[in-house]
């Protein structure tokens, strides 16, 4: 408490001193020639503006060196390169404009600071100049729009994967505050989901239709596993509120909207290991992480984050993303437990048993259950 009061007193004292110094300078100017006063003030402020230009440009340059290396590293997906190129080109254009206009603005401020013996130059307009700075930005922007839209067309060209059976598909459904990640299993097809209150319950949040055979080899995962070089489509949805599916390193971002499916298409360009190796050559990533004692690149993982405000734990919707080779992926798929067996057939079955249960056999037994239930219903009537 004592320190709080002391700190408050110090703050009050600070502002009081500033105030009295300022007031004194105002009083001392009484009786002086106003133009002379303005000349010396403008002289000082004009010089300060020029100093601001030099120091400011210095600080901007320094920040590129100091903060640049901390930015997200290079894109880890094929389309991500398009985005990064576009970002870099635009940044070059923007910085050029930033530097030139600031040099003009603040040097003019310095050069034309008030002098009693001078008069401003009456220069109300010039169509030629207006023309120049309409046409030049127009040309530059046309170039950027053209490049941007053609990249955009490539990124959202879903047709290019049509009929391609070598596509990795997975489904991410967001809810407060986590992700339900579903893979279609070896058959590559998701089981149907039926949105009604019969199918959706606490055991089956997504409303998966277990009678659809495609659902039988689907499985849920606690991490996203992708294959290097394999085109990937992620099907997105949300249960309760808006969420955003964001893979920062892959330059993938798309909202998850309740009641409206969305999707994104990308191809990982590196495995996690390859990407780590890439980072290990960079100075920033060679620094030691104080928490683990490892170099930063060694602790690196790809991650999934939420980018649409979804409530109090919006900041904590993290999942790990691993990019592996096809062999590693196939092995992982086989190892995963089929949610169908867990949820429908026998939740208590040991994973090993479930793993080997032939699909047909299980379906038959399920159909029997369904039949007998139906018979009971009919009999009851």
């Amino acid at each position, binding site marked *: 408490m004592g320190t709080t009061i002391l700190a408050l007193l110090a703050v009050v004292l600070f502002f009081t001193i*500033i*105030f009295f*110094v300022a007031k004194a300078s105002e009083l001392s100017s009484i009786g002086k020639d106003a133009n002379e006063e303005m000349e010396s*003030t*403008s002289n000082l*402020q004009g010089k300060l503006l020029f100093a601001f230009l030099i120091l400011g440009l210095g600080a901007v340059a320094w920040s590129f060196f100091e*903060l640049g290396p*901390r930015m*997200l590293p290079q894109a880890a997906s094929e389309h*991500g390169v398009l985005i990064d190129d*576009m*970002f870099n080109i635009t940044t070059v254009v923007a*910085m050029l404009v*930033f530097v030139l*206009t600031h040099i*003009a*603005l603040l040097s003019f401020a310095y050069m*034309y*600071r*008030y002098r009693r013996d001078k*008069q*401003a130059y*009456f*220069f*109300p*307009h*010039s169509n030629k100049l*207006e023309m120049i*700075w*309409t046409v030049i930005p127009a040309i530059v*922007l046309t170039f*950027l*729009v053209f490049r*941007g839209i053609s990249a*955009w067309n490539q*990124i*959202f060209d879903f047709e290019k994967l049509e009929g391609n059976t070598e596509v990795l598909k997975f489904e991410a459904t967001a*809810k*407060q505050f986590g992700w339900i990640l579903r893979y279609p299993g070896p058959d590559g097809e998701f089981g149907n989901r039926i*949105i009604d209150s019969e199918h*959706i319950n*606490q055991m089956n949040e997504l409303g998966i239709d277990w009678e659809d055979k495609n659902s039988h080899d689907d499985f849920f995962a606690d991490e996203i596993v992708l294959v290097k070089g394999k085109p990937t489509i992620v099907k997105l949805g949300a249960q309760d*509120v*808006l969420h*955003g599916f964001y893979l*920062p390193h892959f*330059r*993938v*971002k798309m909202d998850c*909207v309740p*009641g*409206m499916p*969305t999707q994104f298409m990308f191809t990982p360009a590196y495995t996690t290991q390859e990407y780590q190796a890439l980072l290990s050559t960079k100075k920033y990533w060679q620094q030691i992480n104080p928490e683990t004692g490892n170099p930063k690149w060694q602790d690196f993982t*790809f991650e999934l*984050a939420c*980018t649409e*405000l979804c409530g*109090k734990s*919006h*900041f904590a919707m993290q999942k790990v993303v691993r990019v592996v080779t096809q062999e590693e992926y196939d092995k992982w798929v086989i190892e995963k437990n089929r949610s169908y067996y867990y949820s429908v057939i026998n939740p208590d079955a040991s994973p090993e048993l479930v793993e080997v249960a032939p699909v047909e056999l299980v379906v038959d037994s399920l159909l029997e259950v369904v039949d007998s239930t139906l018979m009971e219903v009919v009999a009851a009537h």
Partner: protein
Amino acid sequence: MSEVTAHHDLEHGAHHDDHHESSWLTTYIFSQDHKMIAKQFLVTGIFWAFIGGLLSLFFRLQLAWPNETFPILESLLGSWAEGGKLSNEFYYALVTMHGTILVFFVLTAGLSGTFANFLIPLQIGARDMASPLMNMLSYWFFFAASVVLFLSFFIQTGPASGGWTAYPPLNGMRDIAINKGSGLGFDMWIGSMTLFIVGSTLGSLNYVATVINMRTKGMSFTKMPLVIWALMFTAVLGILAFPALLAACGLLEFDRLLGTSFYLNNIVINGDLQAYKGGSPLIFQHLFWFLGHPEVYIIIFPAMGIVSEVLSVHAKKPVFGYKAMILSLGAILVIGFFVWAHHMFVTGMSPTIGKVFVIFTLLIAIPSAIKVFNWITTIWRGNLRFTPPMMFAIGFVSLFISGGITGIHLGNSTIDIQLHDSYFVVGHFHIVMGVAAFFGMWAGVYQWFPKMFGRFMNPTLGYIHFWGSIIGGYMVFFPMHFMAGVPRRYYAFDQFQSFNNFTDVNVFMTLAAFLVFAAQIVFLINFFYSMFKGKEMTEDNLNPWGANTLEWTTSVHPGHGNWEGDLPEVHRWPYDYSTNGKEINPQNMPLGEGEEAH
């Protein structure tokens, strides 16, 4: 004409109506004098700016030191900061209210409310607004909106916390289990916004009607100061855009209270399918941004107008390209209505529609660039008096450039995939429409303070305010561009190793935020002290900055009705500086022999 009776006889001039006495209440509180209403908007805006700034300090503390505790927070905020650490729920309430307050209550009402009210009648030579009553109501609706929003801080579930953009379904269900602030707090948010929109519409209609109908003799449209053009366009934007938000909020409240499904479809909460069917959250986003994007021009236009005016007066040089300035404002006004969906490139909207919005969005950079080059040419070979308003005007141009160029990144949908909802966006809009608009506002306050209160603000404190704000402002928001892939609206970054590289940068930005806030304390001291004790303006120095516009032809304390005698007549455009052998040629000065009107 006495101050007491003027407003009864705006039409009849000389006829006095003496039986109605003006009381303290009708002079200072329920005043219909546009000048008093302007001051009410200004003081209320300053109050809100202080609150909004204070909120940002709280959440900046959390961002800089997420693992520290600050006992003072618990004593100030109680259960919202148990143990001296902000709760995540309250963090989101803080950012939500910070956005709402700054965007609507400060930079819309506080900025155009103040300067449209103050400058339109004084600069076009009118005795008051077209409807002084509506004008008064406009303020009191704003005041009521302020009261409702302020009270929402003190209810048990706290104020709205689903973001200032109020997206459903987070804000679309009245369920505090989903989001604490989506209960009564958000109802109050909607109530407050509704009152706000009524107030804003009453004001805007009045501003447009006044500019069109009540210009004094000789004040043709092409002789109007640019700030009046800007304020009129602002009002047009408000009239056309705010109703969309009102409709959006109305439907949202139907969803919340009556169980309709305008914005909701197939919601599953804890494995329980809700009854909502057939709506779409995207419809709300379209309606919201149909206001939300023109809103940024509602914020920046008055600042642009003020800056054009201030640069020209203190450079003693005509604003360069007067007609190009008007046309570019007009172009921004029109194109500004066709760019809203650039906020929605990755919300699930069709990528094909996205392309159209890329084109319109980047198109808007052209009129913006024209304005910047014209401002720079305005000071070229001027005779620049670096008074405090001039400093802020120069600062505005710098900030508008720095914030504007990153709009070229964000408007390009391809880049926006990565940058959407990241700190790059936060840096961009805080510089271009936050800090820059504030600089425009301050330029206006320092410029017209003598006209408002008959006294001067202390210039030294003004310079301290300027340098603290511009250096601090850049230090807060410039580093955010390097956090290009780091998501915004994160309470902490420790859950992700991808986003955890900026811990010390966050400390740096928080310290800078305190610097900026300290500079604002200097401004507050200066403002309120000078209002009562500042250096007095005298009758022999009625035009202290040497401006051409009409407001400086009034007396030190103009009464209700503004001019004691006849209204001034206008003979020339407002930018006849350093011509005709004189530095200033006021608008009401008849043309000299053989001189041609500009």
